[in-house]
């Protein structure tokens, strides 16, 4: 009995199959049970976990702040295509953008779990014909998923009964004929064509081009008007700017004039004060304590005065200026004060005749300067 009999083979294979069946019969329900229990546990824990977190007020709660932009970005990531560029903003912003730029807006809402979702996306939305159509007509494209609150509201607003949904929006004007002619309303954004559910790409394009041909003239007129208005506004702005500029120049001139007048007044006041505060002329009897200085003024007349040897050369300058302007001979009220914030600068030089050299206006004592003991000076205008 070296070879096993046929019956033995049958029995052994039957035994093997029975074992397998038993094994799988036992393991399969356990597997299913395990999976179901796991999911239930997960659901329950998850649900109650979040609930508990929510009611635990002493701890901090993290608030997910998702802006419409974030939602749009999420959607674009999920949408994952390079062919169509979707607007990275919320729906209302997309409306605003379309209105401001006067462009067509294509609105796409999808339902990920819809049976036609993938078919529509591949065969219609991302088909080269449709992408070409959208890009050549310069449509703005906004997309959203129905699980997002904003897209859900939009879909309800457009009374969408079937997904995927494509809607074409543009600016239109309402014109109503009256006895006084046709009155047109302000442009409003309206849905002019919509595609619900799966349709052939040619059908979609035909439908949209029909709407485009019908409403684009209005949009072009509106855009033209808008540009006109914008141009007018530009011109007016330029005019306003020019006017403003000339007004500024005038204002500056007046200010300068006033400043100059103020300076003149201050200068006169200063000179009066300076003349008043000059040291008294030393007596001729006190020889050796004073220098005698003669000055020839620009108008040719001569004047002379005695100065104490201990005071500075600046006093000679003050005397010269007071003489040349005639202030020295004026009756000056004794309550004249030095004008505040005024820096006086002499507009002339005093020059010693022999040997010819300038007497600089500084705090040098008269005794140390060239005018000691006798000075013969010429007053010269600074150039």
């Amino acid at each position, binding site marked *: 009995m070296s070879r096993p009999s046929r019956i033995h083979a049958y029995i052994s294979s039957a035994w093997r199959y029975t074992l397998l069946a038993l094994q799988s019969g036992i393991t399969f329900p356990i597997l299913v049970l395990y999976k179901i229990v796991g999911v239930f546990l997960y*659901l329950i824990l998850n649900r109650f976990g979040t609930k508990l977190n929510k009611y635990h007020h002493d701890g901090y709660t993290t608030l997910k702040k998702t802006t419409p932009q974030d939602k749009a970005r999420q959607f674009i990531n999920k949408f994952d295509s390079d062919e169509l560029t979707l607007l990275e903003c919320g729906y209302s912003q997309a409306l605003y953008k379309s209105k401001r730029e006067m462009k067509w807006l294509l609105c796409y809402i999808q339902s990920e779990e*819809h049976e036609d979702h993938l078919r529509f996306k591949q065969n219609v939305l991302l088909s080269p014909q449709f992408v070409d159509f959208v890009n050549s007509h310069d449509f703005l494209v906004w997309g959203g998923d129905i699980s997002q609150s904003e897209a*859900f509201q939009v879909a309800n607003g457009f009374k969408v009964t079937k*997904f995927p949904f494509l809607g074409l929006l543009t600016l239109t004007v309402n014109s109503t004929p009256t006895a*006084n002619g046709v009155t047109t309303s302000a442009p*409003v954004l309206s*849905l*002019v064509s919509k595609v619900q559910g799966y349709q052939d790409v040619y059908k979609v394009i035909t439908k949209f081009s029909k709407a485009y041909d019908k409403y684009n003239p209005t949009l072009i007129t509106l855009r033209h008007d808008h540009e006109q208005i914008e141009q007018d506004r530009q011109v007016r702005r330029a005019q306003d700017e020019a006017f403003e500029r000339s007004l500024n120049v005038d204002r500056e001139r007046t200010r300068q004039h006033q400043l100059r007048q103020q300076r003149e007044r201050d200068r006169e006041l200063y000179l009066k004060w300076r003349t008043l505060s000059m040291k008294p002329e030393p007596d001729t009897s006190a020889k050796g304590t004073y220098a005698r200085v003669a000055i020839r003024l620009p108008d040719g007349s001569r004047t002379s005065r005695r100065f104490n040897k201990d005071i500075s050369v600046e006093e000679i300058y003050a005397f010269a200026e007071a003489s040349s302007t005639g202030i020295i001979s004026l009756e000056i009220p004794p309550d004249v004060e030095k004008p505040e914030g005024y820096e006086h600068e002499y507009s002339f030089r005093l020059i010693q005749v022999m040997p010819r050299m300038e007497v600089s206006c500084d705090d040098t004592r008269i005794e140390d300067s060239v005018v000691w003991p006798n000075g013969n000076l010429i007053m010269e205008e600074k150039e």
Partner: protein
Amino acid sequence: MTSVLPKGFTMMPVTRYLTGFVICAPLLVSLLGIKHLLVLSYDPFISSWHQYWRFAVFQTAFQNESEVVVAITLLHFALKHLERLYGSFRLASLLIWSSLYNVVLVSILSFLVYRVLGVNLFVSAGPYGIFFTLLYLYWQSTPSIYRFELVFSGVPGSPNPAKLVITDGIFVKILMVQLFVSDGVLNSGIPSAIGVAVGALIHSHILPGKSVDFPLVIPFLRRYAARKPQPTRPTVSDVQDESDDERDATAFRDDEQDTPIRPLGTQLLDTFRT
């Protein structure tokens, strides 16, 4: 921008037929006087009399009109959304799958409860399970639009006033509770809870239902729909479609104030004003 679903059953044949069925089946059952056939209780129908067909038919019709009303309201205000979310065929497939799962789970549960605990389960007649399966899926995929707070001040012993944050889904939830307890917390609650469980299992893809066509029926329906002759000339539906667009163009404005409203009186008066 609204949270209200579009009116009517345009492009939603499955929901339409389901609504019709939910309304007509109880009527028919009442007219034929066969209400007693839909009653399901393990003892004595199954244990003594072996009437296993009762598992197959107990889901066909609600027994009371209030349940019908609540179910129809739920269908119209919430569950309609599922058809546009999934598509008609997928929803039909889902309905068949979920009704099967509900039957299986209810029969297993009533068997186990009777044998192990010795408790005789009475299960209310009507598609509770199917409705709660659909409702579970509805909650999983519907965003909330707005929320509001009810603030109760004057709760003794607490510094902050008690606050209740409610979303717009509360109205559907109230109807759900109504349906849940409509025939007694246990009688209608058990099939409803089983329906929720089935919904959870389908949603997490443990049981096939959402993305798998029910064999034979759905392929047949698909082929039937595809065989319908395509209209070559513009038909009524096409014309309707066009006029639909026109209506939308005039109906939807982002700001209604811009369109001047001229009542008939003004129009008449305008004629004489020059």
